[in-house]
């Protein structure tokens, strides 16, 4: 088993951009990296792209002797991936996810994993990690939220030597909520751009998004400070400077008159913020939480309000900065 001198073995479940980027970075180092992908085409593509990776067509073989498992799939595929992985999961596996979305009833990614597996030692990767940025090889900053010191220790070993600055947090709920709601804020920012409301309005809308994330997080037991840290504010700022986000494109398309379905088809990828906006509203209604930006985005996406009217209403709404519970 693993000790400080033994080679760490990591298994990536999934073959999306994040898995490929992480696989490429880690396979260059001392970590033995294995990857499982469901489709033959995906496996062939990744073999060609990252030859150092051990690519498997059997999940069991990919997980043989694994110390760390990254379920590198978006939130809408996480339950299925966790269920499949759960067949082979072991109690000493360290399991990571970077999914930024929620499931039905605002189920957070770590809850999706818990509902389908026996694992406990879960780490949430948050903050400004983006596959495209990772792929460039530049140094990145990430938050690792976990309640288990061993998870932090293992991930630190994994990334030692890689251009990754890891920031620890125990607030797994806060980091997940911040990540998920930032996608909703991105949808709004995309709408704002398309409507040419200006940079100031964009900044105010993003601030509303952060306030909404904090309200939801606090209701679910998160720590307030998380939302002002790297997982909250630290995620929003770089995302909107670099504009590398499909959510911006979807928001902009909807603001220009496309239907949600058309906008999602154009985006050709996972836009987790759409589901997050709907689920956040259901949660807010059930718990009596007042959400400004999230409600506006949800109404626009459902065709219940025009983008301009909805966003302008948010811009004229008080931010409730002093009441984190949002009541």
């Amino acid at each position: 088993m693993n000790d400080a001198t033994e080679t760490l073995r990591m298994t990536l479940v999934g073959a999306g951009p994040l898995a490929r980027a992480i696989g490429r970075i880690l396979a260059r180092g001392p970590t033995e990296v294995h990857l499982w992908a469901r489709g033959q085409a995906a496996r062939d593509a990744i073999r060609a792209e990252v030859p150092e990776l051990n690519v498997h067509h059997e999940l069991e073989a990919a997980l043989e002797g694994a110390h760390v498992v990254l379920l590198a799939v978006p939130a809408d595929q996480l339950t299925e991936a966790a269920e499949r992985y759960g067949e082979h999961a072991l109690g000493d596996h360290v399991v990571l996810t970077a999914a930024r979305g929620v499931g039905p009833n605002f189920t957070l990614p770590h809850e999706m994993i818990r509902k389908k597996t026996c694992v406990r030692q879960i780490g949430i990767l948050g903050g400004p990690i983006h596959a495209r940025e990772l792929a460039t090889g530049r140094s990145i900053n990430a938050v690792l939220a976990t309640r288990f010191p061993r998870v932090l220790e293992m991930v630190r070993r994994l990334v030692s030597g890689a251009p990754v600055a890891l920031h620890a947090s125990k607030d797994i709920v806060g980091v997940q909520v911040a990540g998920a709601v930032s996608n909703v804020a991105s949808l709004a920012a995309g709408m704002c751009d398309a409507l040419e409301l200006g940079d100031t309005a964009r900044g105010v809308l993003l601030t509303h998004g952060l306030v909404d994330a904090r309200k939801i997080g606090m209701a679910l037991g998160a720590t307030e400070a998380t939302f002002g840290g790297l997982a909250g504010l630290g995620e929003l700022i770089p995302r909107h400077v670099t504009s590398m986000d499909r959510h911006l494109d979807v928001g902009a398309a909807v603001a220009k008159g496309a239907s949600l379905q058309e906008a999602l088809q154009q985006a050709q990828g996972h836009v987790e913020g759409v589901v997050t906006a709907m689920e956040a509203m259901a949660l807010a209604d059930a718990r009596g939480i007042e959400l400004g930006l999230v409600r506006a985005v949800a109404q626009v996406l459902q065709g219940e309000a025009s983008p301009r009217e909805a966003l302008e209403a948010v811009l004229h709404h008080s931010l409730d900065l002093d009441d984190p519970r949002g009541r």
Partner: protein
Amino acid sequence: MRPEDQERILTELESRVSLAKVRATEAGGPKLSEILEDSHYFERKRLKEDRGSPTREADVKFWDQVQQDLRRASERDQKLLARKVIRHYAEEIAGNFDERVYQVVTRALPPGLGLLLNAASPLRLVKRLPQMPNLDESVVIQGEVEQLHRLHEKGTVILVPTHVSNLDSIIVGYALFRMGLPPFIYGAGLNLFTNPLISFFMHNLGAYTVDRKKTDPLYKDVLKEYATLTLEFGYDNIFFPGGTRSRSGAIEQHLKLGLMGTGLAAYINNLQRGAAQPKVFIVPATLSFELVLEAETLIDDFLKEVGKARYIIDDDEFTRPKRVFDFMSQLVSMDSKIHVTVSRGYDVFGNPVDDEGNSLDPCGRVVDTSRYVLDKGKPVHDAARDAEYTREVGERVGEAFLRDNVVTSTHVVAHAIMNLLRERNPRMSVLRILRTGGTEDDLELRSVYRETDRLLGELRALEQRGRIRLGTSLRASAEDVVSDALAHYALYHTRPAAQRRGDRVVPRDRNLVLYYQNRLEGYGLSSRPCLSPNHRALADLRG
């Protein structure tokens, strides 16, 4: 406990705790001399405040000697002195269960419980022995009894019951006997041992002493290690995870995890030494009373101290034998039931277990739990990791308590009355309503029927979803439920919680109304909760 095990446990306990302290010192923790100085400080402080302690004189002498020895102790002497202090605590804690005494006492059942209650004091009650209530019909044992038997065979069981009354340990002990299980070991407050007769029975029925007035961290370490060792030796335990009786009357949700964590510690130790049956199971049990013996004292304590509740109450109804006798007799006379509901068991990580003792993941797959504690391929203790596992167990136990709570008419009608009082006094805090009764000090009987009926609807829906259990009295109409509750309220308490006067219902003891209604906190009923979600509530209650 078998005498040979008792001695082995004490010796091992002394050795383990002292070794742990020496290792902690070597790792840069507090020095042995500092640990002993702290012990001396905490114990002298306790003895200064606790002048009624029966062992005060001997304890003062012991600690004076420790202080004296410590002054000139070499490093080696300090180690010996630490062992002496640990042994001192260990011997106080250790029970001396005697199988023969158990056989004698349990053969006397029924009405053995009467005999036990009788032991709670009082020679003058002995003469009333023939009138003692026979509780065979009154204690209803239900739930996962078969699984409890199986788990007892497959490993060591920690039974974790809810706690509202000092009668609980007696009821649980009686229930175990009725289920055909051997006695379990349990920690009982030192205040329950002050009567020599009850002390005799409690010790011999498997109780060990827990002195909650002792705040010395070393004492707590010894206590935890004692519980751990008994589990490793295969003795099933009872822990009351609420720590103390629920003052508010609500189901405990914020559980004390210290003792529950000993289950995991014992499991890891068992794995390390390759024990044949290493598994430890946590089995919640929910005790539900229609009336609670000490309700008046407990709710008064809850409200009076607002956040600073007395941790130990040694002058309540339980200490008055006639009250105990009257309470039990009247409960029996009303055909009132005490429900002991055994929940399905969990492993020490919070996974549910099947009847064979296999741990199951959420999809029903068998889990190899030894993997949870491996590091470098070996089972190891890890304080931060293990605390996280135990926190999860606490959450599962809290959920089981809510699920297997048996609600009765006294709870539902109290909830209905409190809802109506709050509705009629929307601007008043709960505490003000309790103090003043609000603008109206009685309620229309019809409105109590209506509100009870509404609540029954909600509760039946919850029951269908498996989120609560309803007592048989709640199968009746709202009118009958109200009538049953009012009859119970009139039974035993100094003043009934509520009373009927013509077509009105008068809340006579509003604190008691709050106490009984609190049993329905935590279910998300459509009325506003009286307690805050974490049951601390007290700030909320202040006007």
